[in-house]
């Protein structure tokens, strides 16, 4: 194995090594206390039958994992997660990118637009859920009243109580709340796009979609992948907005792995099984995050990106 040697004096090399250790210590401690220990705890919980109270729960081996794979409710919740991931990832990114492109060339009032679009993202998820819960109320809600005023009474329904629509109603709220993030990030990325290339492609006859696909997107690809990673991983672990708006109901219609894990752990006092379900979220989401991260790094090394 080849080793690299430094020509720097020994004292300097020691100082560099010490500095390196000092710089790494805070992150290492954070990793230990906020990632490794909780993960270790979760692994321990997943092999015991812990009810949240007993101090000496029985060891049950892989029984929680066996139960998880045989549990129909898990597959139902996973199906909802997949719907959430597909719609909840694609929509904010596509809508966010389109709005960012519209705002790209705007100088006047650009700050105001950004403020308006970003506002829902900074609102607490619980507040957003409660307010949209009112909007969706079957009797007094703004949505049904507006539909009634427009003569569309046939479309009125109890949005959050209708098993066919409830998940999409919550998803629409989440998209409303999350798109502002994509917009602001994409606007920032677009500022670094080489406009001379865009102008040149326009002169060469490239239309809008072609300019976006061949000129703009490659330049903002690392940022695009970063937004994709965050929304995708958020889709796996979605919890708060569903918990506030429907609690996973009616009768499991909007249950995702996150809400199901909470139910099992805290409503049914099955901390062990709930933790096993939470581990499933990690196992499913980490490979996606790693894959996109590697792609992002490769593109950066190739010199692409804003």
């Amino acid at each position: 194995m080849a080793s690299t040697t430094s020509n720097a004096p020994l004292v300097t090399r020691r100082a560099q090594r010490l500095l390196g250790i000092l710089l790494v210590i805070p992150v290492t401690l954070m990793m230990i206390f906020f990632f490794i220990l909780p993960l270790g705890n979760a692994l321990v919980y997943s092999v015991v039958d812990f009810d949240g109270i007993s101090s000496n729960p029985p060891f049950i081996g892989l029984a929680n994992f066996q139960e998880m794979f045989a549990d129909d409710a898990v597959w139902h919740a996973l199906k909802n997660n997949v719907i959430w991931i597909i719609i909840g990832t694609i929509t904010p990114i596509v809508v966010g990118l389109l709005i960012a492109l519209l705002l790209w060339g705007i100088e006047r009032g650009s700050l105001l637009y950004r403020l308006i679009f970003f506002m829902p993202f900074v609102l607490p998820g619980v507040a957003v859920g409660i307010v949209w819960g009112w909007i969706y109320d079957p009797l007094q809600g703004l949505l049904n009243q507006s539909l009634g005023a427009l003569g569309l009474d046939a479309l009125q329904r109890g949005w959050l109580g209708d098993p066919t629509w409830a998940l999409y109603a919550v998803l629409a709220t989440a998209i409303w709340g999350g798109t502002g993030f994509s917009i602001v990030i994409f606007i920032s990325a677009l500022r670094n796009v080489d406009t001379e290339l865009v102008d040149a492609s326009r002169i060469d006859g490239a239309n809008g979609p072609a300019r976006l696909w061949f000129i703009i997107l490659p330049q903002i690809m690392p940022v695009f992948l970063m937004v994709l990673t965050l929304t995708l991983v958020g889709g796996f672990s979605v919890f708060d907005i569903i918990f506030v708006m429907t609690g996973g109901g009616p009768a499991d219609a909007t249950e995702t792995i996150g809400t199901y894990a909470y139910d099992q752990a805290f409503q049914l006092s099955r901390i062990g099984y709930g933790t096993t379900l939470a581990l499933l979220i990690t196992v499913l989401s980490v490979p996606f995050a790693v894959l996109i991260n590697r792609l992002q790094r490769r593109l950066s090394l190739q010199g692409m990106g804003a």
Partner: protein
Amino acid sequence: MRKPAVVLAASLLSLTLGGCFGGSPAAEQSAPPQASSGPVEIRYLIGQPESPEDLANIKAGLKMFEAGSNGITVKLDVVPAENMKTILQTQLRSNEGPDVFNYDTGPGFGGALAKAGLIHDLTPAYAKYNWPIYDFAKQRVTFSGKLSGIPSQLEEIGVFYNKDIFAKNGLSEPQNLNDLMAAATKIKETGVIPMTLADKEGWQGGHLLSMALSSEVGSDGMMKFISGETPWNDPAVVNALKVWSDMYEQKLLTPSPTAVGYDNANALFYSGKAAMNPTGSWLAQEIERQSKGKFEVGFIPFPSTTGKGIFSGGLGSGTFVSANSKKIDASEKFLNFLVSPEYGKYSVEKLQDIPAFPVDTSGIKATPLFTQVLADTAKIADGTGDFGYNIDVLTNDAFNNAMSKGIQGIMSGQSDPTKVAESLQKNFKKPTA
């Protein structure tokens, strides 16, 4: 280099394992050291009351205690009722629990805490203070032969109805289920919601089944279900669920009940937009506040196919002392105040909260509705009335979960009474002595 790595790994492992299950429950330890001198502050944890007025009255009651407590003060902590279980269990497990707390008495609640040794045994305090709690109520807080709490809040579940809407439509108080269905159908034709029903939260499902089933099978029949003698997939359960299923199908309930929260459903009743409200006597005070000067309210049991039916009655909750409290003596003195005639009368008059011990109600200014509730619950106490049971405070967590989700399924067209009854039986666990 290996040794530090091994030490680090061992430290991480011990931290991981140590952080998982916390310390041993108090029952396995010696009694915690007690505060023996000076002013004592005890922390009292309760779930959020129905209204700010109720909370203000609770605080005023605590002031009464502090006025005569010789230096014991009470710090009141209020948490959302739906989060009580999670918060309380976490606090008790980490030895950061309240000294005194109000909590459900069911096997999955107070029973589970008592089993884990997290609740202080009050048997000696019962003997010392001679608390006059009704025997049937004491049974609900007795776990493994130990008296673990002070039962409170005698309550009944039935149907509040707007007497003015009934009179306007020429309807009288329903005498059986057919009467109720006929009245609801007639009210629906006038554009008023016959029965306001919330099932967004899910817990209401337990009350719906409790009242329909109690009226149909009576208290003895209910006890057979709760003890496991009769299976939960019995036709009586299917029929009781079918009553609600039929009302949903015939649009006699709030549109989309699973999209409507408890407060919103109650608001429909307060505003006169709904004629009936199936809920418990704990809401009587708020209903009277909201309907005052607008309409008269009656309170009846949910009718059975053959008659007027019976109320589902029982205990709402209990007050417990944490086993890890360092102020057990002061906590017991506080409990002694809660079962005093003075506070009993106060809680009836101001909180409309009926204690599980005899209270002299003479001279109490009670509205007709609350006078009726008082008279009814007195029959629970002296055993002269036939009362059904509120199922969810007597059954296990998995059963309650199946009940609330199953009834949500019925109320959203995803399930049917037979399937729900089968699920109840599958998840039912016979109570242990």
